């Protein structure tokens, strides 16, 4: 049943540092495979310049641009060159607006990071307690209700949830802004700020104007809730299943026989050990969160990586798309590494 732990792990015999180093080195093949996959797939349809500008330039102009960019060379040469460039952090230049891809990544990555942060806050605040409640009332009405709630939040496409929220809170109730990350005034202040991070919440705190801070937060409510509730549904299910699992173990029975209340059993005895698998699976959720972020950003015109990805997709600017996808692959691989490290630090048994 065990899906074959990697061999290296078995030989470790509990040496933490060796485990960490080997786990760290495993990041590289993962990134390498994804970069290769993306590169090969993107090139099967032809070169990026024809895709982006094919209907706007004449055949001669196209050939000239292709030669200038080196896309007429053998694909292997291009591949190794691309690998070398990615390794040094050079992702090329976008075709549609002529910006270095790396700059695009930094500018818009900050916005995506901010959105992911809000979403995680919502997911933890909503998902974890409700999951414990569901486990506590297992197979009773609150549990059934919460599970259906969790499934609905899994089943609803994030963009549809976002559109519904917009409809209710922005159009009908008129209490929250429809889209964007701030009013024009706020955006202007952000641009003028010295040493801006691109994370509006942080920048707004530094400006110190409560009006701007309020504006930034009010723009963040709907996107954060939309993406957060999707993730909360998953957290809820995870916490519920794992807490129920630990509630069935012998030591919980022992505690129960000593007269510990059911509430304390869930809260103290079952919750902590259940955290380890939860943290591991949360590492896998980062991929889902990023996918959701792409859709949420498009829905709310939240100018992050996802929004920009859609724009570049529409423009068939595959150099930019490739850069963004590769960056996201790196983020996923690194997050999984960090999650594994946390799991090891919490639970020595994982080390093997």
């Amino acid at each position, binding site marked *: *049943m*065990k*899906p*074959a*732990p990697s061999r290296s792990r078995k030989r470790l015999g509990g040496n933490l540092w060796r485990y960490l180093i080997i786990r760290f080195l495993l990041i590289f093949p*993962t990134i390498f*495979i*994804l970069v290769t*996959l993306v590169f090969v*797939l*993107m090139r099967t*349809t*032809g070169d990026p310049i024809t895709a982006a500008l094919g209907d706007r330039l004449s055949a001669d102009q196209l050939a000239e641009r292709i030669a200038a960019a080196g896309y007429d060379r053998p694909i292997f040469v291009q591949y190794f060159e691309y690998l070398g460039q990615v390794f040094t952090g050079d992702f090329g230049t976008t075709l549609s607006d002529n910006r270095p891809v790396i700059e695009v990544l930094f500018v818009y990555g900050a916005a995506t990071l901010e959105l992911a942060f809000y979403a995680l806050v919502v997911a933890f605040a909503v998902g974890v307690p409700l999951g414990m409640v569901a486990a506590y009332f297992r*197979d009773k009405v609150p549990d*059934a209700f919460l599970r259906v709630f969790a*499934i609905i939040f*899994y*089943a*609803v*496409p994030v*963009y*549809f949830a976002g*559109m*519904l929220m*917009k409809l209710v809170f922005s*159009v009908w109730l008129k209490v929250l802004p429809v889209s964007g990350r701030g009013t024009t005034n706020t955006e202007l202040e952000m641009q003028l700020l010295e040493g801006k991070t691109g994370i509006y919440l942080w920048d707004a705190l530094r400006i110190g104007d409560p009006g701007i801070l309020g504006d930034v937060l009010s723009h963040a409510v709907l996107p954060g809730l939309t993406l957060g509730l999707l993730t909360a549904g*998953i957290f809820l*299910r*995870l916490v519920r*299943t*794992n807490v*129920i*699992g630990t509630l*069935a173990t012998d030591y919980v029975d022992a505690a129960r026989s000593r007269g510990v209340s059911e509430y304390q059993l869930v809260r103290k005895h079952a919750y902590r050990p259940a955290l380890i*698998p939860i943290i*591991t*699976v949360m590492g*896998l*959720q980062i*991929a*889902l969160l*990023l*996918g959701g972020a*792409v*859709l949420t950003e*498009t*829905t709310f015109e939240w100018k992050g990586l996802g929004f920009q990805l*859609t724009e570049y*997709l*529409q423009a*068939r600017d595959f150099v930019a*798309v490739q850069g963004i*996808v590769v960056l*996201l*692959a790196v983020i*996923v*691989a690194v997050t999984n590494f960090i999650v594994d490290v946390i799991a090891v630090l919490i639970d020595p*048994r*994982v080390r*093997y």
Partner: protein
Amino acid sequence: MVTITQTTTQGPGPARKQGRWRRLPVVHQLHQSVGIQRGMLVAGLVLTALFVLAAIFAPLIAPYGFSQLRDEDGAFGAQQPPSPEHLFGTTVGGYDVLSRVIWGTQTGLGVIVVAVLLSIFAGVALGLVSGYFGGWLDRVLVVICDAIYAFPTLLLAIVMSIAISGGQSSLWGGILAAAISITVVFIPQYFRVIRAETVRIKSEAYVESAKVVGTSNLRIMFRHVLRNATRTLPLIFTLNASEAILTLAGLGFLGFGIEPTSAAEWGVDLKAALSDVSSGIWWTSIPPGLAILLTVLGVTLVGESLNDLADPRLRGRRAVSAASGTVAETSVVPGGTLSAGPGGLAGLENEGRP
């Protein structure tokens, strides 16, 4: 160890005529379930049946064609509010919303069928070979599948659909592009599950004895291993079906969908409806959105119930839960989560309790 799982995996044993249909995957679980779980399973089955029926009878139910812009009374007009002629109004492009929602079931069903069939065949074959023979091929495949598995499905699907169609799609081109994109995402999931099962079954006594009597590898793989490794497939199937719908709609929403003139697709309709929302036009977005929601909800409810019923700890009787093993031993999808595949959690849990 766990009696329940064995009842579903019985090989060709003594023929028990009566009640044979009760052992069919979903029927069996329906009988097994009680209370709320049965309610969830039935609700899921009803929603799924409605979806399939709507797809089959779409030409009869839908008042207009999916790309119809006018009838004998003239053009429909754009963004018309709901009226007796158009129950859910018309879209920005001037199509009838209700008709496109109904026709959309066909596109969805087509994608599910193609995607799931392709990925089952590819994933099962790879998992079987990889797990049975082991060696370097196994290791390479595991690393590749793990890398793909960790990647956001939607992004991979986008890259795939660029590779397949350059992003522009006709009806079958679009369905195939979406289906193949989704297939690539799903293969690792089937691969992991079947591989893990194969590795486990490979060391069972009956496989060894088959080897001793000189049975060929091919025959062992298909007759002895595959037959016993497939118990988890109905569950992954339901999980993937819902993910297929969401990925298809996601692609459509990001502008990689099927042209509105060649087929009806909910994600594309929602993308077109995005700007309507700001001006308070609700009828173009809510019907297709609800269609996605209900379809995914139906399929997920079925999958969720199957998962719980396959896991004695979650089946809802205290007495059973006390006697059964840990999650990793019994759960089909460890942790019972939709996205957690059998690598992450099972690996951890098992390592803790060898």
